[in-house]
């Protein structure tokens, strides 16, 4: 299966303008048909490595790049982007950014035409990838109307049109629900059959661990091969910890803060109800998880609980303050510095004199109050938002997919933080990863518009994944 080198990286050093070296002497060889997984802590340089291999580090980010990168024996440095695109294709974190034509089919065909410069060849290539990827039904749909998993599949189709020798996936599982993850694993099998060389940079690596040929850890700017250690540790932990166990159910500790009674909601007046007869009670101290696949209405439900959307039928009674932390956490922040952020938010909550408490929270998270909130990593942004919410004594905290983009270790730490709070917390997630953790007071599943209580954990293990992560990456996240 293997043989010819597709990628050869030697002594690669990369740093951003005015920054310190992010990559410090990377050596890597990837053979044709190999599937390689790179894991690492937030900010360890995974995306930077992907950018260096695709030539983007220099062209877009004006990075200082030292060392050598060869793609199919050709030097990346100085390669024209048209030529480079024949050797390497990137499937980025947000697949929706890679479509220009509104219709998926038009976009793919347009790219095929660009690559092949001939209508007939382009049609052939288009039909071939569309059938190979099983996305015929998506071609007549607008890219912004399809799910994240579908968009990624369509983007992979685009990426393989050019016959690129190397496919790079940057956090492909981010924002995917459990079904999307299964789809991606199937996709990897398909790419293996097509003998495509694949590199994956991912936080949520457990579902991929047994599917790839090699596993690397990126730490302190260096890459280490941990393939055999990853598999043996995974097996060892599988035996040490049960695959799934019942959570220790704790009831709410305090007074009723929010109650949804028989809530119905739909966006389209003539359409079907997205939410049907939702009943939910939140007491102080509750840490509630709402699990559901993408498109089941989790975000809509949170917005109804928050009071942003009004239910068509039923009612929501709020007996305290509510804060909503969106999935795209950057949308939560509005100020140029974190200090200003704290002062402004405490002022709005008429707690100006207590802003010091908020600043202490910031320092407690090892974050410089004078830095910009937008310069923080995704994980830090989530933790800061949660920290501020607790400093404000928010009664009900609603978090939409807070785990996306976090390492397993960070997910567990965030959960521990939520569990210790005195608020009622609702977390909406599309992944069962977190359900096993024994920190939930109630677990619900949102399916076909109904909210049903989950009585047992179905699969996955955040604790095991977190231990595996610590063993491999060897870091205690901040």
């Amino acid at each position, binding site marked *: 299966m293997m043989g010819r080198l597709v990628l050869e990286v030697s002594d690669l050093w990369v740093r951003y303008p005015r920054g310190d070296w992010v990559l410090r002497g990377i050596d890597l060889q990837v053979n044709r048909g190999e599937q390689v997984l790179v894991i690492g802590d937030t900010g360890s340089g995974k995306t930077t490595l992907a950018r260096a291999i*695709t030539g983007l580090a220099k062209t877009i980010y004006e990075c200082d790049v030292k060392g050598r990168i060869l793609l199919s024996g050709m030097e990346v440095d100085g390669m024209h982007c048209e030529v480079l*695109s024949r050797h390497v294709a990137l499937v*980025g974190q947000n697949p929706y950014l890679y479509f220009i034509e509104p219709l998926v089919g038009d976009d793919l065909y347009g*790219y095929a035409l660009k690559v092949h410069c001939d209508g007939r060849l*382009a049609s052939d290539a288009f039909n071939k990838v569309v059938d190979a990827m099983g996305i015929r039904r998506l071609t007549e749909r607008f890219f912004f109307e399809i799910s994240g998993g579908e968009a990624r599949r369509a983007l992979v189709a685009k990426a393989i049109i050019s016959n690129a020798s190397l496919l790079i996936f940057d956090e492909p599982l981010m924002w995917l629900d459990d079904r999307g993850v299964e789809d991606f694993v199937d996709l990897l099998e398909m790419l293996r059959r097509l003998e495509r060389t694949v590199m994956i940079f991912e936080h949520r690596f457990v579902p991929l661990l047994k599917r790839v040929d090699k596993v690397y850890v990126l730490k302190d700017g260096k890459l280490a091969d941990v393939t055999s250690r990853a598999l043996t540790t995974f097996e060892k932990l599988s035996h040490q910890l049960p695959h799934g166990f019942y959570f220790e159910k704790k009831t709410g500790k305090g007074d009723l803060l929010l109650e949804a009674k028989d809530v119905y909601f739909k966006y389209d007046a003539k359409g079907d109800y997205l939410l049907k007869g939702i009943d939910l009670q939140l007491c102080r101290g509750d840490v509630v998880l709402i699990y559901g696949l993408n498109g089941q209405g989790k975000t809509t439900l949170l*917005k109804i609980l928050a009071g942003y959307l009004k239910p068509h039928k039923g009612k929501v009674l709020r007996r305290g303050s509510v804060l909503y932390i969106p999935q795209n956490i950057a949308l939560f922040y509005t100020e140029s510095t974190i200090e200003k952020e704290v002062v402004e938010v405490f002022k709005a909550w008429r707690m100006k004199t207590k802003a010091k408490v908020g600043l202490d929270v910031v320092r407690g998270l090892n974050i410089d109050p004078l830095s910009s909130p937008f310069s923080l990593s995704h994980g830090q942004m989530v933790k800061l938002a949660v920290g501020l919410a607790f400093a404000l004594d928010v009664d009900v905290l609603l978090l939409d997919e807070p785990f996306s983009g976090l390492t397993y270790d960070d997910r567990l730490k965030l959960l521990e933080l939520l569990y210790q709070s005195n608020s009622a917390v609702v977390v909406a997630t599309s992944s069962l990863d977190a359900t096993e953790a024994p920190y939930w007071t109630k677990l619900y599943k949102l399916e076909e518009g109904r909210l049903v209580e989950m009585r047992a954990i179905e699969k996955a293990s955040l604790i095991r994944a977190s231990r595996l992560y610590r063993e491999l990456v060897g870091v205690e996240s901040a």
Partner: protein
Amino acid sequence: MFTYSKRLEDYSTLARVLVASTIIALLMFARFLSRDVSVEVTKLASILSFELYLTSRVRERQRILTGLKLILVFTIIGALVFYLSHLLGWLAPNPVEIVPGALRLVAFFLGFSLLFQLISLREWRSILSKLGFKGQALAFSMAISQIPTTLYYLSEAATAIKLKYKGKRSYKVAVPLALLSLLTSRSLAESYTIYGPPATDIRLTTHKRKDIYLYSSLAVLVAAVASIDALPL
């Protein structure tokens, strides 16, 4: 409302471009060259009817109802502005102007939406490239393609910021959106560098057999709007 519909592909590109741009021109004409409000309202009503007719050809009935709802919404907003101004002692707009104002807004909105419903982005890119604006055409396409996701982010940010600032300072929603746009533009640049602009083999057609129907109905509209000035309104 701003996405292309293939239902009018039986008509040539030229006919569709002419119809969409003539509607905008007529709206300008109605706005600036009407002798009084009643004449402008009559013209706007004629143009709006034609716009709704075209929309009905390319969209489901639901979308047309959305267009009609818009008229109602803007009229209500206009009325609210009037009464608030009156209550606060400000110089209130003439209530007679509220209706044409609402009609004008909706007619322009629908007129501009037709530019994108009748003509595809690929056609726009091709037309602009032929006019020597290739780079601008691509930037325009990329910007347009991100509108739906930006609208989604707007709703997310609005929910978060409304609660964060206890219903005050809603204007701050612009900050994360602006920043997100900056980050998005960088990611778009990445995507553009790797995949480049999609090529197009689209043929810009100048005439098709069915064009005559479109030109006839447009001629009726132009004649109607032009003759309204002569009516004793």
